[in-house]
Every structure is written in structure tokens, then in C-alpha cells.
């Protein structure tokens, strides 16, 4: 089954714009995320980094997700439990590109882990971004905890959890559905599956019969939907409605986004360009030009700008220090009084 492509829909576009969708701003972030990921891949193939894993192909969906988050610290704001393909969301939230490069280069200036964790393993307490960890499913088991705290607290804050299609094979996905939908104790959580239809090299359809995955939520009494994640307008509208539902009802919603995977699973599989899948950026560019939102030559200037920013960031980060090995035991435990 081919990946879904962008479909121009004027009514959806008008609706999104009425909900503050800014097409040029979205495009900028998508391109910025792609430029970052391409630079990170280059770093993984040089002396500037080791392993790479990230989100080329998910820029459309992940960008608009970040733009709709109520960002802040504490129970009144949205909690995020991401997996490792979320660079576009973090950029949309306001992360400086250089911070991801610092993590790739495992420098002490890496604000997420000070050189301890893989790239795209984000955490930012000030924004309620909870730690990304390499196991592909654990965030689904953990997320109902922040959502339960938010339910008790009241207000409009919700919890967002993302994971891939392969991760839904783990029991933690079922745990998430179950703990989110206990009768009279439903929690405000947006359970997202970004379905790129692969687990490393194994096609989803070879080992799963549950398509759409989100339909599994139905047996828990959870509202669900699917969306073309390569379409930023459709994704924006769907996320807007799902989040509004979750914020106001204080109940879960399960959303499956069909996305592309344009550089394979990770550097372990070569991170080569995959040109057989839909590229959400190219599709959106066609739309922007057709709608006279931007001219063709401006698109190239935007790309050049972010590629240059990424390159300059690498040059700067190379000069920054590595962690001091004497700090290796730091933070193993919270010290008393901390």
C-alpha cells in the first residue's frame, strides 16, 4: 500500500487558517527539521558523532503537533512523552537547532543529557518534555501517570504520547489504552501512533493484522481516528480537534498518523535516501506555490538558510568541551536536599 500524498483541500485549508495555521511558518519548521536531520546524518558518518536516529519524513505531522502544544511547566500545561523521531516537534516548540547538534556531538553542552544519550533523545523539564528513551514502547506505559496527575489537578492540560507502529506490538501500548480508559477514571491523554509501516527492516503488514492500529482503542471505548501525516493541513485540523476533545472531555483520544520514513530506521541501516516514499516537504512546496503563498526561488533561500544554520552550529559545537569523566557518577542518585 503506497504512502498517502498531500491532497489540496481548500475547505480544510480555510478551516486550518481559521485555527491559526500559518502555512509559511509550518514550512519553515519542516525545512529546518529536515536540514537538522540531514546534518545529523552527516555527523553520524563523520567524526562528529556516532549513532543517528531521527525523523526525516515526519516533519509535517510533527511540526503541527508542536505548534498546537500548550507549552509550559507543570500540570496546567501539556506533558509530552515522545519517541526518537520528534525533532520537528522540538523545533516547533522552540528548541534551538544547535542543541540537537550538541547531543549528537555528545558534548557537555548538550542540554538534554550532557553527552550521555543518543541524539533525538530529548528531555526538557521546563516544557514538560519527559525523557525520550531508546526502548520503543515504555513511554506508552508511563504517559498515563502524568495524565492521571492532570486529571486530578483539573484544568486544561493534557498528556501526549507518541510511538511508532512497531512499538504498538508491545504490551505497553495495551497498558496505555487500559490505564487511560478505566471507567470513571479516564484521563486526558492523546495517544499517537506515527505509522511508517516498518520496524527497522520488518514490514508492519508482515507481522501485524491490526490495521488501522488506532482502531484497537475502540474496544476500550476510546475515540480514535487516522490521518494522513504527510499532509500538514489535515494533520493540523485533526490534531486540533483531537486535542480540543481531550482537553474538554478529560478523556483519551487515539490518533494514528500515516507518515514516511525517508532515511531508513537509523544510521545502523545506512540512513540512505529513500526516494520511493512520499516526501511531505516536496508535496507541501507544490501546494505553497500553487496557492501563491511563496515563490519557487524563495523556497531555496529558506532551505539554504537552515542548512547554513546547521553547518555553523556544527562548527561551533566542535569547539565545545566533552563531559569531564570525573562526573560519570553525578546524578546517579538525587542527593539529599536537592
Amino acid at each position, binding site marked *: 500500500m503506497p504512502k498517502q500524498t498531500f491532497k489540496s483541500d481548500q475547505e480544510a485549508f480555510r478551516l486550518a487558517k481559521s485555527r491559526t495555521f500559518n502555512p509559511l511558518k509550518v514550512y519553515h519548521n519542516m525545512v529546518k527539521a529536515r536540514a537538522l536531520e540531514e546534518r545529523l546524518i552527516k555527523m553520524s558518518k563523520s567524526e562528529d558523532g556516532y549513532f543517528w536516529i531521527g525523523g526525516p519524513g515526519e516533519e509535517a505531522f510533527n511540526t503541527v503537533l508542536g505548534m498546537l502544544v500548550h507549552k509550559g511547566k507543570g*500540570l496546567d500545561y501539556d506533558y509530552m*512523552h515522545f519517541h526518537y523521531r520528534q525533532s520537528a516537534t522540538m523545533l516547533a516548540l522552540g528548541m534551538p537547532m544547535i542543541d540537537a547538534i550538541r547531543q549528537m556531538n555528545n558534548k557537555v553542552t548538550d542540554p538534554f543529557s550532557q553527552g550521555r544519550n543518543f541524539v533525538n533523545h530529548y*528531555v526538557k523539564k521546563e516544557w514538560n518534555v519527559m*525523557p525520550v528513551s531508546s526502548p520503543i514502547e515504555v513511554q506508552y506505559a508511563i504517559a498515563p*501517570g502524568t495524565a492521571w496527575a492532570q486529571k486530578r489537578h483539573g484544568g486544561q492540560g493534557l498528556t501526549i504520547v507518541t510511538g511508532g507502529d512497531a512499538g504498538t506490538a508491545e504490551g505497553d501500548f495495551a*497498558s496505555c489504552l487500559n*490505564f487511560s480508559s*478505566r471507567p470513571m477514571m479516564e484521563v486526558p491523554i492523546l495517544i499517537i501512533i506515527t505509522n511508517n509501516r516498518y520496524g527497522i527492516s520488518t514490514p508492519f503488514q508482515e507481522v501485524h493484522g491490526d490495521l488501522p492500529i488506532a482502531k484497537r482503542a475502540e474496544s476500550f471505548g476510546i475515540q480514535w481516528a487516522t490521518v494522513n501525516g504527510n499532509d500538514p493541513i489535515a494533520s493540523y485540523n485533526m490534531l486540533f480537534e483531537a486535542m480540543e476533545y481531550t482537553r474538554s472531555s478529560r478523556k483519551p483520544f487515539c490518533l494514528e498518523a500515516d507518515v514516511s520514513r525517508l532515511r531508513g530506521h537509523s544510521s545502523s541501516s545506512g540512513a540512505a535516501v529513500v526516494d520511493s516514499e512520499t516526501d511531505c516537504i516536496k508535496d507541501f512546496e507544490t501546494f505553497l506555490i500553487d496557492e501563491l503563498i511563496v515563490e519557487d526561488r524563495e523556497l531555496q533561500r529558506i532551505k539554504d538558510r537552515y542548512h547554513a544554520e546547521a553547518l555553523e552550529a556544527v562548527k561551533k559545537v566542535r569547539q565545545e568541551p566533552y563531559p569531564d569523566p570525573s562526573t560519570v557518577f553525578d546524578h546517579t*542518585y*538525587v542527593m539529599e536536599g536537592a
Partner: protein
Amino acid sequence: MASIAQAIRMALHVGETRLGVQDVFGQDVGPPLGGVFTCTQGLTTSWNAPLDERGIVGMAIGLAMAGARPVAEIQFCDYIFNTIDLLKIAGNTHWCTAGQIQVPMVVMTPVGSGIHGSIYHSHSFESMATHMPGWKVVLASNPLDVYGLLISAIKDPNPVLFLYPKALIRMHGEEKIPGEPDDVKQLSDMIDAPVGDRQTWQPQWPTLPDFDIPIGKGKKLCQGDQLTVVSYGRTAPLCLQAAHNLKKQGSSIEVIDLRTLIPFDENMVFESVSKTGRILVVNEDTEITNYGEHLIRRVLDNCFYHLQAPPKLLAGANTPGIGLAECLEEAQVPQLNHIEQAMKRLLEIKG
């Protein structure tokens, strides 16, 4: 004096009334049962979770990340094994995030043999538990220590695995918990749920003053100068009894109840071994890569030139499970006679 079950209940009551605990949860933890061992009866914040250990531990991590102070229970440690990668995450989060995110949560679970529990109700877990950096690990042997250490576990900003010996859950202590009534029956009338319909029952909690026992401090159960015995949990009182029995034959044995395994009371252990020159570690986990081996390695590193005999570990048989028949269980985990024999053999070695 209170039982361990009652001590846990009172500590959790302190937790939910004074220490910010809003969730005490696990399978059968909430009303009407209040835990299969009655450890959570009468609490106002207890609730029943789905029968899903990973969901329970995951929920606790999420709550802790959101600033809550959850206490989760896994009904038997035999069923905690499928949560290990989540436990690892609870333990590594503070380190991985360079100190950004704390995970102050308690996971309680009963451990060990002693109730004819057969293969899936007799496991020990401390050797695995102590292999997860970032966790503190507690395993007390009597109601007062259980009470004081559980309060400290709740207060601790780190994840704490609170193991307790299921064989001793009904055992009444010799030391009084501050605030508990003198009369055992009076305490039972106050905080034990009645058999049958409990819908209208409310516990009458005793007034419990501020009290805790610090994590990381051992307890000398008896003094001696010929042999140091280090134990915890079910085997700790057996070691004390064995030491008393051998005292009648002229032996002077010092018994340490470690109480906390991570971090353990290095000063108490090393000072004792430096004095006696002999150490026996007793526990009932399987003997290969047993936590006691770690204790012995640390003793060798720190007390080698004081030793007069090879350190000895008396532990559970390296078998896949504990047999149901009493004769099998007694052959597989240390009993009083095994401990006495091990003590005698060590004392016979000439330094």
C-alpha cells in the same frame, strides 16, 4: 506490638496524611480487599489497578515525573520480572537527564519463601533489584524497621524498592512503633478491617508522631567478637536465634540486620568484620551472582588483612524454583540448622 502488615499500613497512612502520597495502588490494593496480605486496608488513597504489572510501574513513573509521590505494589515479587526495563528507566532517568527529572516513587513487593508458595510465590528479588543503579533497595525484617524505613522510602527523592519478607508479615514485633497502643488487640480493633462486609468500616488510626529510620543504616541484633553474620529479611531473625543458641556453647557472634541493601551500611559491616575477622552472609536468594557475593567482595576489598577465615555465603540453592513440599523448601533455602552449621564451621577455622 504491630505486625509487619499493620506497620506497612500505618506508614502508608502517615504517607497519605503527611507526606503527600496520593496514590497507593496495585492489584487488589484498594478496597474491599486492601491487599492480599492486608497491607493497604483502610487507606484513603488506595486503588485497584488492572492486573498489569508494567502498567502499574509505568503509571508510578509517570506520576512521579508529574511531581506526585506514588506507592505502587506488585503483589508478589515473582510477578515483577516483566517490569524490569521500566524499573531500569525509573533508576536511570535522573542520570540520563543529567539531573533534570527526578522519579520519587516506591515500589513495594513481598519477597522470599515461607508460605509454601511453590514456584511463583517464593522468589527472592534482591540480587536483581540491586543490579539496577539509581534505585535504593530496602528489605527489613521486623515491624518497627518496616515502618520507619517505609516512611523514609516515601520521603526519598529517588526510586525505592521496598521489599518485605512475606514469611514474617504476620509476625508481631518486639519493639513498639511510636504511637501504637500497648495492646495488640486494641491495635487490631482500630486498624484491621473486619471479615465480611467492610463498606461502612473506617479505621481508627493511632496518633503517630514523626518518626523514621534512615535508609542506609544497619542494625546490630547482637554483639560478638568471633564472627560477623550479615543478613536481612526472613533469615535475619533466624541468624539471631542461631547466635543465641551458639552463645550457650560459648560462641560470641555479632549479627547485623542490614535492612538497606542499596546503599548498605559499609561502616557497620567493615568495622564488625575488622573486629571479628570472620563473616557469614545469609540470605535466601539463589546463590549464583547473589547480592551476598557483592558484600563479600566489598569485605575483601576493605577488610582483607583482618580476615582469619574465608568469607562464607549461605544462600538459596541454585534451582529454578522453590518446591511445594515442605521438605523441598527447607532443603532449598537456609533454615536455622543450616545457619548454625555454617556458623560453627567458620568458627572452627583457625586464624
